[in-house]
């Protein structure tokens, strides 16, 4: 079975590159030569084909792997609806913006607004799984409607801002104001979190759905979930009570 398509950065990006159109819509059956023709908008209004920046090889198999320093690559996998996207390093801003399905796995860190909503959109990601092994910039998962966003490191702040539903799971420090203005959905804090004043404590328990999610993350993505996360307990806070109030923050605790 083919490992899919490999996109290897030819040389270091010298300016911000908007990769928002290269994986939007149907792409998983495209050959490297077809993907190479998709447009990338460079800072300064210049548009170039993807193949000018990346060397693409392999066979279509529903998977694409990006290699190289993509810290200046923005909007990677924006609008993703299918397939598996793997990034060996870190990416720029707005990774997985408004994604609707498929999987985006970032082995490094992500910039601001990962899995969030585009400025003109009401909803952030509406499906799929966005797995960030490192840290995430501000407003990760802002206005997300469905799906799973897992962050292996810390979140810079305002994670899940105004989220409508879905799950954000943060292994490291959740940063300030996580879950603020949420309507529904879950912010799961396996590390430190400051509970917003507009959330109210409900109980301490073991949510079975979380054990299901953690088991899946560990089995499918080798996400670094620890045994203590399975055997510990979770404080449940309901909120944001300044909005609809049907969301929750689940804060891990050893006792």
């Amino acid at each position, binding site marked *: 079975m083919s490992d899919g398509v490999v996109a290897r950065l030819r040389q270091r990006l010298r300016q911000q590159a908007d990769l928002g159109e290269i994986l939007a819509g149907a792409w998983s059956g495209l050959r490297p030569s077809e993907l190479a023709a998709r447009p990338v908008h460079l800072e300064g209004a210049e548009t170039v084909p993807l193949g000018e920046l990346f060397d693409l090889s392999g066979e279509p198999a529903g998977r694409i792997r990006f290699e190289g320093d993509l810290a200046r690559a923005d909007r990677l996998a924006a609008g993703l609806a299918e397939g598996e996207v793997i990034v060996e390093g870190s990416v720029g801003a707005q990774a997985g913006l408004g994604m609707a399905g498929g999987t985006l796995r970032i082995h490094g860190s992500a910039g601001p607004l990962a899995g969030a909503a585009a400025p003109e959109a009401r909803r952030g990601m509406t499906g799929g*799984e966005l797995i960030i092994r490192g840290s995430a910039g501000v407003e990760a998962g802002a206005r997300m409607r*469905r*799906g799973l966003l897992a962050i292996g490191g810390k979140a810079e702040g305002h994670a899940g801002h105004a989220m409508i539903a879905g799950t954000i799971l943060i292994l490291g420090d959740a940063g300030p104001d996580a879950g603020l203005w949420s309507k529904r959905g879950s912010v799961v804090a396996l590390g430190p979190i400051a509970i917003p004043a507009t959330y109210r404590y409900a109980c301490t328990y073991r*949510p*079975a759905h979380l*054990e*299901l999610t953690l*088991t899946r993350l560990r089995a*499918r993505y080798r996400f670094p979930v620890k045994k203590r996360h399975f055997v510990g307990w979770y404080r449940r806070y309901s909120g944001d009570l300044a909005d609809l109030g049907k969301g929750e923050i689940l804060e891990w605790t050893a006792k």
Partner: protein
Amino acid sequence: MNLRGVFIEDTFAEAFTMRVARILITGRSARWAREAALNLTGFATSVIGCKCEAAIERELPLRESPDGRPGISVLFMTMGKDDMGKRLIERIGQTVLTCPTTACYDGLPEAPDRVGVGSALRHFGDGFQISKVVGGERFWRIPVMEGEFLVQEKFGMQKGVGGGNFLILARSADAALQAAEAAVDAMSSRTGVILPFPGGVVRSGSKVGSLRSKTMIASTNDAYCPTLRAVTTSALPEQVNSVLEIVINGTDAPAISAAMRAGIDAACRDGVLAISAGNYNGKLGPHHFHLREIMSGGEPV
């Protein structure tokens, strides 16, 4: 054919096509997963009186547990597609939802036929239930006094086989029971197979209809009752004083065939005179398990 001195009759077990679902139950400990599974599969020996047939298939290794907790796999069978949803909603709602710490998952994710279970049980949450999509599957979190009950929205259902069987004809009741216990031990915990009767064993095999009542759909299998040898047309060889039956349901015929082979092999021991099987002359069920073919390593017709 003889196996260690036990005569294998030249006959076959006749089985039917049923619908089967696989239910995975997990709990905080193996105790509570098993408790829920035992209640879910209680009073589910025969569709004749129970509307379904169900039993524990096996314990799940932790690596196969959907949520990493101790788990039990149950096979749940009905005669028709329509029955499956009703029975699962009734039984999961009354026996798993009510059982401390448990969660309930679909064990046939590839089956194209899907029946709504969590989608109905969620209403117990009275508007406080929460939906979660994990790995593309929807689950329902139903708030309960203990915490939350997690149940998958839909369960897979596929064609299965019910009514595989064999009869142990023994010199004494003790010998029949020991042979049956050995057979059950050899057949238990096999993937794709359940033994829905108490302890896996039936002492009251039935025939279709009745000699006296037109309304009875089944009655005692008088031909195999030792106490009736002198007053009915008996099928029992001389010296047989007790008969026990093992009924085997499964996800497919090969799974049943393999289980029967293991069970019959274990049952052929001291005090057992013959192994037979129940059938309706091939008129009712499409699956025929010929004992001698099975014990020779052949596949069912």
